[in-house]
């Protein structure tokens, strides 16, 4: 992306965004709620158009329905259904967009391969409703990787999972990258579970986008400049990063803040505090 900008209902979400993601690497997209992390993924998959700048996805303009791009949305209605098994859901990833009555012969095989790769075969025949969050995420990954995409876009694959399940999904994302050689872009809330596999960080905040290797973006100078006030980063003995100074961002929402839904500042502060101290 070069100098990309997205407007939603007449307001800029972010602008002057420039970054590259190389194949075989993992880029994590970080930033506060409502900063436009998901919007960034949606622009790559063709669901949201750029209002300025250029974007090239695997050599072409972004377009919906490109089989070389796999996309996993943040929430899925399917998860609450009794009459849909994981295998059915992964199958929809394969031929869900096709009209008519014809069945494809290699569907069973392709779906099986995706289930195998993501380790979701043992629970693939149970209704989605009865599965755990981690199992559903594995199936969603199988759904997104059914065509062996060259670019894999994952929107909050770790949301709502406990630490052990988060670690499993991160290992799986790493494994998928290693076996398929795909470029992976992951939207996340917390850097720490992903830190050991990440090649690149894309930080979205205050209508700006910063991209680069982990240590170039997640350092005190870059983040302080981005937020306009001092940010401190403490590295724990086990190598986890605690970012101090972002509380400000949530406790005193700036006037052009893009997320007006969080009325309760105190509650939000507690949430963020919890997140950084984890």
């Amino acid at each position, binding site marked *: 992306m070069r100098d990309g900008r997205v407007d939603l209902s007449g307001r800029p979400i972010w602008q002057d965004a420039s970054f590259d993601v190389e194949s075989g690497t993992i880029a994590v997209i970080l930033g506060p709620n409502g900063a436009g992390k998901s919007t960034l993924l949606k622009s790559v998959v063709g669901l949201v158009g750029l209002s300025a700048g250029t974007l090239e996805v695997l050599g072409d303009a972004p377009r*919906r329905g490109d089989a070389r791009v796999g996309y996993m949305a943040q929430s899925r*209605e399917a998860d609450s*259904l009794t009459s849909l*098994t994981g295998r059915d859901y992964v199958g929809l990833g394969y031929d869900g*967009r096709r*009209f008519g*009555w014809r069945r494809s012969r290699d569907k069973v095989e392709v779906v099986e391969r995706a289930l195998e790769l993501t380790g979701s075969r043992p629970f693939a025949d*149970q209704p989605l409703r009865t599965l755990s969050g981690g199992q559903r995420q594995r199936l969603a990954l199988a759904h*997104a990787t059914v065509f062996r995409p060259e670019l894999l876009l994952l929107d909050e694959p770790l949301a709502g999972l406990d630490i052990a399940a988060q670690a499993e999904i991160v290992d799986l994302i790493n494994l998928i990258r290693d076996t398929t050689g795909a470029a992976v872009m992951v939207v996340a809330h917390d850097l720490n579970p992903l830190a050991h596999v990440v090649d690149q960080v894309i930080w979205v905040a205050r209508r700006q986008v910063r991209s680069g290797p982990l240590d170039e973006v997640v350092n005190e100078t870059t983040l302080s400049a981005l937020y306009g006030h001092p940010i401190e980063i403490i590295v724990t003995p086990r190598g986890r990063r605690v970012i101090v100074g972002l509380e400000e961002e949530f406790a005193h929402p700036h006037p052009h803040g893009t997320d007006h839904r969080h009325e309760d500042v105190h509650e939000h502060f507690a949430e963020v505090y919890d997140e950084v101290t984890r």
Partner: protein
Amino acid sequence: MSVWQLLQTSFVQNAFYAVTAVSLAAGVVGYFVVLRRQAFAAHAIGHIGFAGAAGAVLIGLSPVWGLLAFCLGAGLVIGVAGTDLDDRDAVVGVTLTAALGLGVLFISLYSGYANATYSILFGQILGVSVSDVWLVAALSAVVVLASSGVFRPLLFASVDGQSAAARGLSVRTMSIVFMSLLALTTVVAIQIVGVLLVFSLLVAPAASAEVLTRHPGRAVVVATLAALGSSWLGLFLAVWIGGPVSFWITGLASTLYLVARVSAALRERGRRVAA
């Protein structure tokens, strides 16, 4: 006349063919109503159809034309404007009240005997003519064929709209397609069970199937069988014991749903105890 002689009369036979056709369409479309959580839209479309029927009677046309025009029109409005779950309820509610207001106006303008509108409300299952049977059968065939043709994309758009959109499906188009199918099914079902009970064949059998089965295809089959079972048995009981057919059909369909929920809950508990 004995029950068996009654069952052989032409009006009971026509009713039998008509409920069969309706149940086939309602089973397929009903599954998507439950899946997409659009029971309110299904309910509203029936009532909107009532206004259309009243309007058609007012200008001297057969009620079925008014039903078709209003149900399809409302289906389009809801399908286009209510793609997002966020505003769907409001869109359905406003469309419903607007149409009902028109219905009240049409009835007050109509000076004749309101028998036609009464039968629209409660159905006239035993007054079905041979030509009605053909119309109902033709519309049902269209619905069943079209639904099976769009089954996969409609399912995909219903269970994971974002990912379906990313794969190049238009979620809005699928919403319009679904609402049109729902509107046609409603038109058909209103002829038989009436506005007030159209819901019973669309929702209860499919909701039971969603609880009882694991695969979408199987759920459609079970929903259709449940709709067929309740309407055949309901028709038989009405002839045998008496009472309105639509009462028996709705009673059976609702009981079935109750049984499905209870048995699913018991099974769930059994599994937990075992684990």
